[in-house]
């Protein structure tokens, strides 16, 4: 099956999830966080660093109020949680800690990164200049991704295609008497084959049909807006 098999279904959800997916709980958690004391949880930074941060935060807070944020200045200093993990070292995953049987356990790295990103999505953290994040997904080799995600999906899709193909070939043969080899020479049968393959590739869940329709509308929408001024002429 094509290597691109996972791409088409990925594209539709790019835009469909954006509009409705505003996590209200993120908003709620944002407000109290803004008044929390930012305690860097590192072994290297300690009390002195924290003290400075307190003053600055208070300074900032009092200026905020006239603008009308409506947030009362917190008298109590709470603590904010920062992502920390023994395997997350200076902005990247320490691959030496992911060894299994002498080789890096990439599945565990992927799982750890998923956990970290999920954590950050729910608890956004400010970027740190001292320990900038440098881990990106290209560090994990392509075959690790393929083995874990592409191959099971490809197996499923190939299975579907085989089942549909077998029964369609049998059905057409029983109706028309044309054998499998002769069917391949017929233009209509070749079209059916193309439709079947495309269907298996693009429509993997029931929702995909709607998603594809929306995608087509969206891609042509901007163009329609530019053309609108010329439609006037045609009227």
């Amino acid at each position, binding site marked *: 099956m094509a290597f691109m098999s*996972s*791409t088409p279904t990925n594209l539709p*959800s*790019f*835009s469909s*999830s*954006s*509009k409705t*997916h*505003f*996590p209200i709980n*993120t*908003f709620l958690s*944002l*407000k109290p966080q*803004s008044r929390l004391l*930012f*305690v860097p*949880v590192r072994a290297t930074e300690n009390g002195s660093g924290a003290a400075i941060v307190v003053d600055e935060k208070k*300074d*900032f807070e009092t*200026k*905020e109020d006239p*603008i009308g*944020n409506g947030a009362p200045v917190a008298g109590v200093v709470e*603590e904010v*949680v920062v*992502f920390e993990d023994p395997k997350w070292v200076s902005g990247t995953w320490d691959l030496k800690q992911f060894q299994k049987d002498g080789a890096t356990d990439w599945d565990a790295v*992927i799982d750890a*990164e*998923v*956990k970290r*990103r*999920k*954590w*950050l*999505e729910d608890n*956004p*953290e*400010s*970027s*740190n200049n001292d320990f*900038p*994040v*440098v881990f*990106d*997904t*290209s560090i*994990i080799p392509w075959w690790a*991704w393929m083995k874990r*995600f592409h191959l099971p999906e490809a197996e499923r899709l190939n299975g579907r295609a085989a089942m549909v193909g077998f029964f369609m070939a049998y059905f057409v043969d029983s109706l028309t008497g044309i054998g499998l080899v002769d069917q391949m020479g017929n233009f209509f049968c070749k079209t059916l084959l193309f439709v079947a393959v495309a269907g298996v590739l693009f429509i993997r869940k029931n929702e995909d049909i709607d998603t594809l329709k929306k995608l087509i509308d*969206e*891609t042509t929408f*901007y*163009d329609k*807006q*530019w053309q609108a*001024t010329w439609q*006037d*002429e045609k009227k």
Partner: protein
Amino acid sequence: MAAITHPLHSLTLTFKTPNPRFTPLPKLTISATSSSNRHISGRKLTAAIIGGGPAGSSAAEALASGGIETYLFERSPSGAKPCGGAIPLCMLEEFSIPPDLIDRKVTHMKIISPSNLTVDFGKTLKPHEYISMLRREVLDSYLRSRAESKGVMLVKALVTNLDVPFQPNQPYIVNYTVNNRMEYLPVDVVVGADGANSRVAKAIGAGDYACAIAFQERIKLPDDKMEYYENLAEMYVGNDVSPDLYAWVFPKCDHVAVGTWTMCSKQYIKQYQHGVRSRVYPKIAGGKVIKVEAHPIPEHPRPVRVRGRVALVGDAAGYVAKCTGEGIYFAAKSGRMCGEAIVKASEGGHRMIDESDLKREYLKQWDLQYKTTFRFLDLLQHVFYGNNAAREALVELCGDEYVQRMTFESYLYKKLAKGNSWEDFKMVSNTIGSLIRCKLVGKQMEAFDPNVLAKVARLHKIS
């Protein structure tokens, strides 16, 4: 009511007519010809530009240089528009902007993903390349005074209405208030450069467009923190700072502007601003908020951009690029193109023009030159700004030097950068690879068991 009397203006009405609708002006020679535009005898073509920003001033300059009698209406010449204030290199050349207007030259950019992956976007900039940051009031007043020096008549007034004529050979009437007096001016051509809430657009029934709202706070930082932003701008992406666009920290003359913008969740803009502030917090702690501003930004062109002898330019027409939200250059360029189109069609002000002239010389040229740019940026916005996974992929890709070079060259020179096909192919396959990988991580995140995450939280909380 009194009309402006100008020595060259032969059409003068000196008292208020009881009928608010104007009467046909006797001095206009109407020689109906089937195809060519009629020759105006005894006077030059008159044009009114509503709005004195970059679009209006550029249009006015082009018109006056071409010999058209031009009036530029601006209601508050000293106003400071809320704006990012960044202009590309090509604008400095094309519009001859003196270098002493530039407050800051941004040579580094940082893009930060939702998971705080930071890339340095600017490794490929040559020493003479930078993004210029200006104050809008400085730029606007310079462009206006230059237009004035070319012969444009500046009118400091608020335009209240534009009367569209019933018959095709009658002038447009610009109704305006100056010094608490209602006045009016009849003109042949109107250029609407009055921004997102354009009155000219309303008057001609140009239709509505969707707007994003941009919200920005100007923060004065202590000197050591300001040093970090000496010539660095930052861009933040993530659902916590903007669900469909981005948030920024731009350095200005002596402070930074921290802001965000969104199209689909306008009611939550304050929360997103909170989100940016938290994300930038250590770098702006100790700063003082000196100004808060917000402004609508059009998302796409208006359904009608030219009607009769009225053309819309700049924000009024909706010429704001998607993905980046860049508008100043396109406003100035469209103003100039429109002005030049009118000069050409009227042969230096000697002939009357009509709608088809405007469409042929201005709209068609503009669409031809910039539609692909706008379409491409729209595609980028769709692909990369949809959700956190796509944004992670975007930041990953921006780490690549070829991508950086192509992006900056296209932005700074507004021309499709010359790349080589092998690198292009590598870039495309990297794009697909990054998108696939980040999407997979995203899908895993969605399927993630929240109970496991809660256990993680308990483990790390400091009591």
